[in-house]
């Protein structure tokens, strides 16, 4: 008896939620857009105690939406499920500091870059002279999984061991925990999340900052293949926010150096 009642309750629940989830047809003018964002990548995106998302990615997404006069819903998504969720139409575009790479361009279309920051090697101060392959021979490099930096490490540092982590900030947790010898990450994140903070004491940048050639074009907004109308509108909106100075205002409120990728 009890089990029968349970079965009825469950099937009702399922039917109700499926029925309520019909979403209106998306007209080609893109009045409503769902934007996939992360939340684990300060200062680009983070979740506040009040449950609100903030950060440079979030602000860019909002500025672009405002420029397009579109009503945007931000959908917070873990990095690992980002591309599948885009293909499954859980959202229409990704604004999550996603670097434009040839591999990713096979799976998605990208906007023009909206920022570009160099990469940086970080290790215990004085541990290494430079970031040549010879200096890191036999050492363990910590880098974000599925990132252009991970590819760079795999290609150029064949004699080093690699520790892949699931989010950018984990690089520095692992580094402090001593599970690797040197971390390779975004110059912005490494300074904001680590070097400028008490945990980063005794650690320093190794050599100069690095720009990855194979990264190609900095960080862009990703779309499903073939959503050309949306991509062109976003590109126009990005141009407009750069032109009217709101991009610079936003960027200056986060970074004390140029992230625009201009003059690159």
């Amino acid at each position, binding site marked *: *008896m009890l*089990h029968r009642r*349970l*079965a009825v*309750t*469950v099937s009702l*629940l*399922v039917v109700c*939620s*499926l029925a309520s*989830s*019909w*979403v*209106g*047809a*998306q007209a080609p003018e893109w009045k409503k857009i769902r934007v996939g964002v992360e*939340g*684990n*990548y*300060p200062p680009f995106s*983070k*979740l*506040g*105690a*009040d*449950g609100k998302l903030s950060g440079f990615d979030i602000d860019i997404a909002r500025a672009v939406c405002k420029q397009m006069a579109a009503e945007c819903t931000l*959908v*917070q*998504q*873990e990095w*690992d*499920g980002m591309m*599948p*969720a885009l*293909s*499954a*139409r*859980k959202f229409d575009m990704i604004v999550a500091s996603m670097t434009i790479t040839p591999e990713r361009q096979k799976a998605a279309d990208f906007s023009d870059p909206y920022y570009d920051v160099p990469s940086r090697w970080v290790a215990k101060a004085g541990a290494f002279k430079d970031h040549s392959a010879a200096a890191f021979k036999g050492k363990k490099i910590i880098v974000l999984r599925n990132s252009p930096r991970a590819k760079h490490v795999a290609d150029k540092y064949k004699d080093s061991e690699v520790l892949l982590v699931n*989010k950018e*900030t984990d690089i520095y*947790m692992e580094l402090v925990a001593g599970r690797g010898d040197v971390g390779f990450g975004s110059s912005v994140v490494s300074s904001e*999340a680590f070097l400028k*903070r008490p*945990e980063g004491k005794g650690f320093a940048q190794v050599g100069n900052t690095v720009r990855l050639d194979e990264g190609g074009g900095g960080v862009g907004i990703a779309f499903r293949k073939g959503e050309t109308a949306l991509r062109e509108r976003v590109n126009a909106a990005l141009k407009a926010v750069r032109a009217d100075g709101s991009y610079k205002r936003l960027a200056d409120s986060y970074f004390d150096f140029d992230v625009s990728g201009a003059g690159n």
Partner: protein
Amino acid sequence: MFHGYLPAILTGLSNTLLVAALSLLTACVFGLLGAVAKLSGSRTARWTAQAYTTLIRGLPELVLMLLIFYGGQILLNKLVEAQGWEYIDVPPYVAGVLTIGFIFGAYLTETFRGAILAIPRGQAEAALAFGMARGQVLRRIVLPQMVRHAIPGFSNNWLVMIKATALVSIIGLDDMLHRANLAASATREPFTFFVLVALIYLAVTTVSIWLLSRLEKRYSLGVKVVSF
């Protein structure tokens, strides 16, 4: 101490508990269907149930979750496009509950099957001989006794399942661990939040164990406990 993230994490806890409870109901439904199918006289039913438990128990939960959630949605999109309908979104809640329920239903199938087999055959035969219909035998004789045999295995499944809900964040569900992760990133105090979440999970599982052991006692009334 928690930089104001405590309410956010407690909301996450209620999500975790809700997903776990609904998944358990779903898993019970799949488990009962599976167990009955495995013990039924129909070869098709037995084979289907066998395929279900073999496949699901043999694959990692995370892989299944990604396959069902994203793969399922993509299939659904294709179907919908072919039919010329509008886009149907499977909300992460529904997908999460169905996926976890479907996975743990396979484990519960085996738990329930074992529990049913533990009931002496003669009882069902006697009931049939008294003229009860098959459904009546199931409801009056088999299910009430099955519960007693099933509770230990069921408890294990429940505990594993509560913890498995931590995987649902990958499909966009806002559970407790996910919130803790975000809070850890934002405040850069991972251990504060991971320890907090560990303690909360421990509290939930401890209460579960206590409740289930009371339930086991209740269903074992009239059964002599043998101690070694």
